[in-house]
């Protein structure tokens, strides 16, 4: 929990501090004119916000009537009206002609057709995997990453320490500016964690190959554009978490809360944009529901 008086000012203004926290702010206010000015600005701002008048709906707006309210809007197909307008009932006079074959011939044709279709499907899958290089959708496990960052000296199951000199990974930087120096490198599967610290604060950079599935990112955060860069930002377990795309790599930054989201963003921007080279069989093996796993049963 922060003890920075500046960060406590809002809660102080709202009378939401503990007695101890209030004492800290009182003492800081007594000593700092700038803090008193900041408090005065916040008071004025909250007075403005509290003074916002009620807003009347526009003319013609009517709350949904009781009969229509029974409709569960979450289940309504948003295109239903269009489909109703455009849907054309099948013309019963336009039935496809029936091919006259005896039963055995129809059965053989059916089995052959099924086999051809199956082979075609397999090849289409293999080819589609080949065209998905660098496009594997990824939803980084931000919950686990935040927990792993918080676990500090006791890595969670699956994360093994690695020698960065042997990894030759351009994403593993020796430092990220200031006094934030690399402390440890760990790996679990395709995920690499690099932990940085200045002795007081800590920040972890997780990276893994793939493309961020922005639509699949968890709801506890939000996607936004920051300086023309799409990012997902959230708060988990007292840490700021940021997800960004750097080339073919998904980067997840977990920063201690007192470092601020700005530090996470700055770190994300300094990560290099790298292309991930994968062999054809690596891509097959990495694809969900891949053929190798299915072949192995």
């Amino acid at each position, binding site marked *: *929990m922060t003890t920075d008086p500046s*960060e406590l*000012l*809002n*809660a102080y203004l*709202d009378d*939401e501090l503990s007695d101890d926290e209030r004492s800290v702010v009182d003492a800081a206010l007594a000593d700092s004119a700038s803090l008193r000015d900041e408090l005065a*600005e*916040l008071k*004025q*701002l*909250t*007075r*403005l*916000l*509290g*003074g*916002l*008048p*009620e*807003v*009347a*709906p*526009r003319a013609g*707006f009517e*709350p*949904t009537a*009781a009969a229509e*309210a*029974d*409709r*569960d*809007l979450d289940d309504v197909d948003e295109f239903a009206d269009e489909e109703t307008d455009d849907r054309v009932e099948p013309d019963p006079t336009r039935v496809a002609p029936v091919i006259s074959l005896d039963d055995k011939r129809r059965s053989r044709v059916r089995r052959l057709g099924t086999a051809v279709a199956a082979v075609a499907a397999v090849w289409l899958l293999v080819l589609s995997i080949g065209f998905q290089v660098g496009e594997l959708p990824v939803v980084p496990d931000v919950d686990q990453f935040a927990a792993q960052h918080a676990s500090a000296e006791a890595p969670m199951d699956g994360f093994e320490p690695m020698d960065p000199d042997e990894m030759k990974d351009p994403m593993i930087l020796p430092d990220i500016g200031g006094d934030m120096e690399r402390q440890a490198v760990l790996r679990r599967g395709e995920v690499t964690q690099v932990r940085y610290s200045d002795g007081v604060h800590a920040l972890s950079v997780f990276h893994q190959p793939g493309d961020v599935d*922005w*639509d699949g*990112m968890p*709801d*506890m955060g*939000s*996607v*936004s*554009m*920051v*300086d023309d860069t*799409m990012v997902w*930002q959230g*708060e988990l377990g*007292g840490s700021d978490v940021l997800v960004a795309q750097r080339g073919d790599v998904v980067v997840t930054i977990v920063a201690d*809360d007192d470092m601020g*989201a700005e530090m996470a963003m700055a770190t994300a921007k300094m990560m290099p944009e790298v292309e991930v080279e994968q062999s054809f069989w690596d891509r097959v093996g990495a694809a969900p529901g891949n053929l190798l796993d299915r072949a192995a049963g």
Partner: protein
Amino acid sequence: MHHVRTIAVVSDSPEAHVDATIDAERPVVEVVPTWEEVARDHTQFMYTVAYRLCGRHEEAEDVVQTALVRVRRGLETYQPGNLRGWLSRITTNVFLDEARKRKRRPEQALPEDPERVLEGAPGADDALAAAGLPDYLQAAIATLKPDYRAALVLCDVVGMTYPEISEALDVPVGTVRSRIHRGRSALRELVRPHLDDGSDGGAR
């Protein structure tokens, strides 16, 4: 709009069901309203919350309509106590759900120049709704991340406490505190020129 604390609302409607016996020696207690009563008596309140969150009438109308559907379903299990708090919670969560669905249309980053807040300002009818207010304040609110906006509106417009906001948004109180701090910090930067010269529009 004044800060709101639900006191007691007694429905005159014969259709309302009473959850507690009312006698001369006991305080008046809130009863569960009908959906029609909510729509009649509280739509403007819900609309205000929605408008302050969305910044546009079109979106506010959609949010309120969806919220009223949820209200209708929720009345079956609503426990009397703080009706406007409950309605605020529903309205805000509808807004946040819609914001998450719009991930394909990323939000605008906070403008560095406070004057840019007025770009893309609400249309004429929205400006009428903001009459008597600093236009820049509503536009500034609309630039905040939805999570910060929700915490700020619930705190400063609706008047909820941090624990109430925590329950409404299903986040820890610490997260509420952080979001309010960051939201107000961002707003303060945007509106500071107007704060410095003492112009506070229609503030009470």
